[in-house]
């Protein structure tokens, strides 16, 4: 067994144990923390906001489920939120969840990132009227899954880096492969750029249908799942395109260049960010296979002499080379401009709760 393999096993064992333990803990029973009744609310006549000032509750880090039961009459433009008493930065991740007249019961999640005092806040469409009958705040065990997910990501990156370093130092990875890896990684980070900020963008079409439902229900906030999903789309687009191009042209560097061009193609980024069309993003993973099949067919049927990319490059004049390198540089620059201007021109949205994301987004749009 190679040295990197041994190290990987040594690293993986404790990590898997930790992850399994956390996963097991995430199936713990839910625990009712507090119930609020209508009588405990203090109404503010001017702003039609009811606050449960007397009944604050201490939230320790974790994921909480909030169940809200409404009276018969629920006015339009009403909403419920759990707010932190002290304005500690990002102590409580919670959206205002809109309530509609037909709603008799809603539930949503809130995430306590730090220990904080919290209380419900009810916005009513009617002055001096609190539509909430009562509500429960329940501590769930989903927090363990969230920690497990974060640790999984951290462990994966650490392990990959350690193995990679060992391989490089032992000359198990060629220089060409190292360059390809670094360039692909840079391109993926570049394409992912707008989502390196704290929140997410839903685009003009805001389609959520392809989001990984499992992660949402397991307790991860909506924006985190959105990011994971987009990252996966970009990663797999890069990998499939690289694989297909290498298969077709038998040259790693050329495949890498084409893959980077494919990944940073402006319409690709437009589909994912501006349009928020996740299904198109998914399509881009499979499109290179179509190209590969078509290319192989053409090659088999029409091209008698095999193309050698290396020969073409070597035989090109220095002007053509300069032109191609310049064009590639310009292309990357345009891609950077595209992602930069997108992030600069669009306001990020902060959506935490998956179930009510549609409602919340509609509320924001309104």
């Amino acid at each position, binding site marked *: 067994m190679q040295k990197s393999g041994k190290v990987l096993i040594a690293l993986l064992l404790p990590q898997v144990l930790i992850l399994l333990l956390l996963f097991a803990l995430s199936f713990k029973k839910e625990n009712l923390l507090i119930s609020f009744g209508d009588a405990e609310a203090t109404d503010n006549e001017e702003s039609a906001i009811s606050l449960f000032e007397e009944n604050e509750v201490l939230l320790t880090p974790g994921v909480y489920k909030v169940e809200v039961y409404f009276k018969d009459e629920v006015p339009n433009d009403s909403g419920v939120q759990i707010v932190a008493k002290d304005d500690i930065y990002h102590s409580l991740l919670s959206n205002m969840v809109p309530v509609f007249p037909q709603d008799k019961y809603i539930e949503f999640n809130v995430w306590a990132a730090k220990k904080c005092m919290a209380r419900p806040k009810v916005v009513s469409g009617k002055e001096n009227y609190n539509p909430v009958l009562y509500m429960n705040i329940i501590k769930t065990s989903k927090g363990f899954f969230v920690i497990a997910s974060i640790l999984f990501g951290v462990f994966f990156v650490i392990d990959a880096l350690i193995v990679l370093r060992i391989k490089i130092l032992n000359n198990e990875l060629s220089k060409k492969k190292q360059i390809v890896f670094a360039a692909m990684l840079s391109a993926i980070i570049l394409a992912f750029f707008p989502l390196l900020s704290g929140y997410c*963008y839903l685009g003009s079409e805001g389609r959520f249908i392809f989001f990984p439902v499992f992660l949402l229900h397991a307790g991860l906030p909506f924006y985190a799942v959105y990011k994971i999903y987009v990252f996966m789309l970009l990663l797999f687009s890069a990998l499939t395109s690289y694989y297909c191009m290498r298969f077709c042209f038998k040259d790693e560097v050329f495949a890498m260049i084409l893959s980077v061009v494919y990944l940073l193609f402006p319409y690709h980024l437009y589909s994912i960010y501006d349009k928020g069309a996740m299904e198109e993003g998914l399509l881009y993973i499979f499109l290179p296979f179509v190209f590969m099949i078509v290319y192989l067919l053409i090659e088999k049927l029409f091209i008698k002499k095999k193309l050698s990319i290396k020969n073409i490059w070597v035989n090109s004049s220095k002007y053509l080379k300069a032109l191609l390198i310049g064009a590639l540089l310009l292309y990357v*620059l345009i891609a950077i401009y595209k992602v930069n201007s997108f992030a600069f021109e669009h306001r990020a949205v902060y959506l935490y709760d998956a179930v009510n994301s549609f409602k919340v987004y509609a509320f924001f749009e309104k």
Partner: protein
Amino acid sequence: MSRICDKSDNIWKNKYVVIFNVVTGLIFIMLFILSVLPAKKYDFNGNTFIAAGEAADNLAIYGDITLNPGVYRVLLDYETENDEEAYVTVKDGTVITGGLLTNYEHFYKDNGRTDFEMWLFEKGEHIEVCVNSTGKGSVSTGNLTFIKTNRLYTMAITILVFLYLLGMGIFTFLYKDKKGLIAKESKQVALVLFVIFFFASLPYLYGFNISGADLTYHLQRIEGVKDGILAGLFPVRLEPKWLYDLGYADAVFYCNLFLIFPAFLRIMGFPVSFSYNCYSIAVNLATVLISYFCFKNMFKSKRIGVICSGLYTLSVFRIYKLVITSAVGEGTSFTFLPLILYGFYLLLAKEKEEIKKNAWIPITIGLAGILQSHVLTCEITAFVILFICILYINRVFIPKIFFKLLKAAFMTLFVCLWFVVPFLDYYLTQDVHIKHVSARTIQSSGLELSHLLFNFWTSGTHTASDGAGLYSSHPIGIGFVLVLFAFVFAILLFTGKIKNNIENRFFKTVFLLGIVLMIMSLNIFPWDMLQSLHPVLASLISSLQFPNRFLGWGTLCMVIVAGYDLSFFMKKNEKVHIAMIIAICLFTVTSGLRLTDYAVYTSNQYELYNAASMGYGYISGAEYLLESTDYEELTYMKAKCGENIQINDYKKKALGADFVCINSSDENGYIDLPLLLYKGYKALDTDKKTELMIIEGENGLVRIIIPANYEGHIKVSFVSPLYWRAAEIFSLIAYLALFASCFKKGRREKCKNQEKC
């Protein structure tokens, strides 16, 4: 080389230089004579009354006045019922654009007379004095006086001196070049440095200022230094006219040493916006030269020195601070940052035997420069030094290094003693507002990760804030190109390409430091948690205001990392090295220069010529105001007397007053003077030579206790305590010692060159 040592070479004997000197000398004498001629006065009599409820829009109260070119003071008597509801300005529609420069001055109830400057560069024959009023309360104006000062000629003298120095510089260059004394590489370096300096200074080459958030605050500081010097206060501790003539202690807390240059330009007669632009250009020049010196010596390559100087001077964060927020204090401090890291490089990246004797000098100059330009950067610098010392704990205590560091620390302290002593004195004894801001949290204004990777910056409309992501954000980041080079460095480190030696260890430390500083600027760094740990931490963190301040140092660290990458590939792979230079040019143009362009064309532009145009009351966050003082209540005031107190011959002076006082009762009385009670005021009975008691009066004003049955002449003035004066003398000696050390170093290097000859 032999020509350098040839003493017979003398530029002064060149006939063109002789003609140039003679012509300049004659013009200088002529201008000097004109500048010492007595000032002329032009009086105009008249009255205008604008009743309450009647708004006035450019109502000409005096018209068709003819004046010759010159710099004038405009004095207009007036009475008004309210503050800042009316103002006066001077116009002439017939002069060329830029021929008449003036703003306006607001009317204040308790002021009674305007005194603002007007620059007239061609003969004006239809000059009008106009009043604008909102109609809230009545306004009446009286006599008008134009005083023609000699400042037009003092301005001309300043320009002449500048042109003379420039001309001599060009002559020297041509003379040396003709004799083949300037190497081709040096000429190329000079040209590129000039281009960098020129691009960095572009926003200051217009006739206006870009409206940064801190612009008027710094313009007021310049005006404050000017007013202080003209009032005979040096060093200026309290700005006498700031805050409606009440005196503000900005200079005690925010060192104004470098502002003496723009204040000098103001004294010579130039408008404040022009002085500010000149100062910013000087800061750019100093940054280009200092950073080039440091980077060149660090990487032992002129080419890398120039590139790194360009990366640093045209870095996004520096442009953001200097151009977009007009934070000229912080911008000045960035000039000195490279010296500190260069000093540490000389001490820590060399073997014991190679450490130079004067390695402490860059650290001293750097630290002293930062302390005397921006105290908050000093706080971050302290963290940086602590970080480096911890990582180099095994080397810091080597006697040769330790004593050099100690020497640098003590020398810095002595050089800055003139500022540090009053600063600490006020901070410890005066209850100023800055001591009450520890509850302000900063984490929410931290950056998103993507801020650091952004390339195509524009001015933006707001600083980073929770929820908005990058949306319309101010250009707060270190720039894409520096992150790219950090990524390259990380790859080199990861793949084991960087050898383990003492020099590389230093660059690895700088890289790590840069990463830490960048993380500290993000909103994921737990600032709020740290703030809740201890009151001292809370106060320190709160005073930072914005975590993005760490990016000043972060940018420098990453520029050094970029320099290392360039140096690495210069030796290993020339093609990659050239590609890197192309990438730097490309990203600098699309990032820094694009941002500069945007800033100029999209920001508001101000043309402010004097303090009157800004009003006298703006003090930014009121950090140095006494906590007991209500800022909203402050305006121009008259002396207020207690019961049975009478004052005569009252004269308000800069940070003082002079009057005759009578207390006819058997009890002590008081007078509240329009001066804010900072430590240092003294009230003296000039006849009996006794001191009168001063206590805090209404709204933090100076209250003088008048003894029962008293009659006498009282003089109130601000007097620096003796220990402040002692500190100033210590600093002066330390400055002389520092200059002597630098001079000695320079002479030693010159001698070495001569030995080589």
